[in-house]
């Protein structure tokens, strides 16, 4: 039976009012950049220019850090925890009130399907503020000593794949612990962070507690290397993470890094095939594969290879690629032309190195940046598509015979962020979970996130944890 056709079901963008240009958010106000230059942010689905923002310069960053320092010393670190908590609860509530607006804006600026921004990103953003709000007046019970102190000013640099969610992961625990922040969103997705600045104003957050400087890598490096910053938190590529680790070497700055991954999603012969295939699809095609913990390597037991692959292809053929604002869309736009070029280049290398490429028949829109869901078979561990993070909707399939071989292959990577295991046998799940060198192991599920659950990598996937009680450690002097 052929798949049902869907009528278009676009979400209205009328709820979002985008200004033609934005300044920086410093000391509680939107201000013009002093030494920055303007950059444009576009909708990756249509290439429409959404707004102009500033790429903050050195003086801008300095101004923001000074504002954060003043706020730290005069108000925020002196505020009782229960009052900080109330500010964070307020922010959580305002996010819930404005959830639909934020979801539409996130989808416009990032290109991700509205189904995901509406059902995953924004609810998790509110949940993170709720969760860490509750910690603000309970820090002495968190296991870091009787009187844990904040670090000071946190410089935070976040990526474009989950713009508002990554902001929440960084800002909520920092503020709960009594730090003030200067946050730099990614240059291609600054709009929801600027909307968050408005939310801080609505919450009457004291000026300077949260400062937002937009811009690209240069702005980020001003922030990271600013002597007034006590703590650096970065989520992004391993390459940039290493550069930042070198930049803070020899200073007293604290550092946490959430970097890349090349997760194995391991399917055993006794796995429930349909559920496993759902998990594989969710693992690699969620958010267009723009996920550091994406299950980009499927390791399938040889005995069920044919069956799983056939089911996977059948399922992939039902994925709907296109307008991210359409409520039935599964896969949206690639975030930028640069990222699209990288995905294309690595996929071509995959073919050149002898792997077999397959995508379901799907029509891609004429404008915007698009890449079809793609699977490579006949992949060996030496292939670059099996070793390098592609950060796109591209799955590499490898096989194994024994559990020991699955572990060996899964761990054969400099990364160690996440892994997936699909089997009906409980003792095997626990054995695999023990052997896999990864910070998160999803068993019979994938890509689950929760503020109460620690997240972060082993090896070159970075250091530190975000979420849970563990996430407080990065923002306390312990």
């Amino acid at each position: 039976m052929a798949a049902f056709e869907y009528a278009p079901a676009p979400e209205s963008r009328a709820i979002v009012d985008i200004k033609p240009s934005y300044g920086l958010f410093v000391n509680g106000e939107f201000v013009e950049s002093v030494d920055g230059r303007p950059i444009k942010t576009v909708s990756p689905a249509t290439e429409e220019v959404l707004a102009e923002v500033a790429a903050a310069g050195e003086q801008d960053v300095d101004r923001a850090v000074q504002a954060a320092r003043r706020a730290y010393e005069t108000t925020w670190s002196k505020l009782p925890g229960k009052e900080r908590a109330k500010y964070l609860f307020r922010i959580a509530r305002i996010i819930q009130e404005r959830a639909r607006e934020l979801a539409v804006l996130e989808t416009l600026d990032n290109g991700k399907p509205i189904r995901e921004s509406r059902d995953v990103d924004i609810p998790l953003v509110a949940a993170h503020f709720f969760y860490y709000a509750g910690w603000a007046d309970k820090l002495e019970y968190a296991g870091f000593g009787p009187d844990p102190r904040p670090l000071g000013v946190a410089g935070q640099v976040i990526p474009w794949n989950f713009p508002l969610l990554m902001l929440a992961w960084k800002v909520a625990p920092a503020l709960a612990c009594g730090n003030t922040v200067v946050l730099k969103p990614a240059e291609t997705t600054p709009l929801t962070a600027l909307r968050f600045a408005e939310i801080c104003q609505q919450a009457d957050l004291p000026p300077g507690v949260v400062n937002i400087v937009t811009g690209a890598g240069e702005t980020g490096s001003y922030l990271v290397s600013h002597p007034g910053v006590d703590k650096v938190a970065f989520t992004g590529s391993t390459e940039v993470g290493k550069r930042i680790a070198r930049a803070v070497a020899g200073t007293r700055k604290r550092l946490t890094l959430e970097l890349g991954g090349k997760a194995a999603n391991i399917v055993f012969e006794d796995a429930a095939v349909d559920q496993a295939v759902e998990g594989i699809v969710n693992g690699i095609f969620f958010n267009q594969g723009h996920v550091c913990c994406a299950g980009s390597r499927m390791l399938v037991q040889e005995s069920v290879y044919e069956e799983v692959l056939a089911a996977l292809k059948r399922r992939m053929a039902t994925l709907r690629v296109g307008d991210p604002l359409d409520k039935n869309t599964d896969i949206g736009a690639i975030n930028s032309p640069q990222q699209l070029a990288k995905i294309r280049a690595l996929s071509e290398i995959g073919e050149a190195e002898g792997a077999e490429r397959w995508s379901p028949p799907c029509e891609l829109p004429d404008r915007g940046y698009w890449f079809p869901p793609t699977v490579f078979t006949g992949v060996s561990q030496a292939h670059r598509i099996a070793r390098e993070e592609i950060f796109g909707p591209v799955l590499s399939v490898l096989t194994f015979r024994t559990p020991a071989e699955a572990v060996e292959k899964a761990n054969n990577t400099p990364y160690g962020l996440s892994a997936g295991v699909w089997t009906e046998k409980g003792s095997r799940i626990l054995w695999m979970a023990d052997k896999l060198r990864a910070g998160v192991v999803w068993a019979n599920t994938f890509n689950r996130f929760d503020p109460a659950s620690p997240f972060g990598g082993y090896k070159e996937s970075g250091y530190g944890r975000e979420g849970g009680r563990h996430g407080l450690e990065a923002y306390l002097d312990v």
Partner: protein
Amino acid sequence: MSERLAVRKTYKLFIGGAFPRSESGRSYEVRSKDGKRFLANAALASRKDARDAVVAARKAFPRWSGATAYNRGQILYRIAEMLEGRRAQFVEEVQAAEGLSAAKAQAVVDAAIDRWVWYAGWSDKVAAVRGSSNPVAGPYFDFSVPEPTGVVAVLAPQRSALLGLVSVVAPVIVTGNTAVVLAAQHAPLPAITLAEVLATSDLPGGVVNILTGRTAEVAPHLAGHMDVNGIDLTGAPAELAADLEAAAAENLKRVLRPPAQEPDWTADTGVDRMFFFLETKTVWHPIGV
């Protein structure tokens, strides 16, 4: 009749549970703290020795990290037992190395023995203190457990040859890491004698490897080694520490930075060192029937 001539000890390296000489064939003169007395020619470890030690530590990692916490705790306690049995020898060596009075040296050795006992008791408690069951908003069982980071390079404190050394090695291995240790440059002898204790304490070969030599020569090879997961820079010379930290960024090693000044090792050590070389693994599974 002439006086009996003492049989002197040859101090070598400790790699993979064995006591080899440096592959470079080099050695250096170790003198008493006051410089008046020749104590021994210690092995001058080379880059190759450092690499061999990392290989041994990596090889030992699966078994040591996979051992039960109960087993690891007993082995650490056994180290305390063996150290106690050699108390007099250590008092003498520490006295010579650090220029302490007999009474002070005794106190140092006692503290070192007690420190092993303290850490021994931690092995089966770390998971309870650092792990958690996470109340996620959905039908999932979600728990977090601490796990060792892997192979950790340890630059031992330069002033405290035994107590300082024990205070940085025990917290690294009690949680299941394996270690490559660079002993205090000018006072390396208690470290090698400690290796004899470790070798007879049921500690699997390779869990602790001890190099003696020049910190500035060997440390950069450990900091830049791609198969080392963490580095403790406590004993790093100030002028070298920033470079070592930058080199460690190459594979994102966990870096424990040097303290502003060498701590008082006789004081309560706290848990920070032990927790520093831990990862947190979180496991999710759906709940349903």
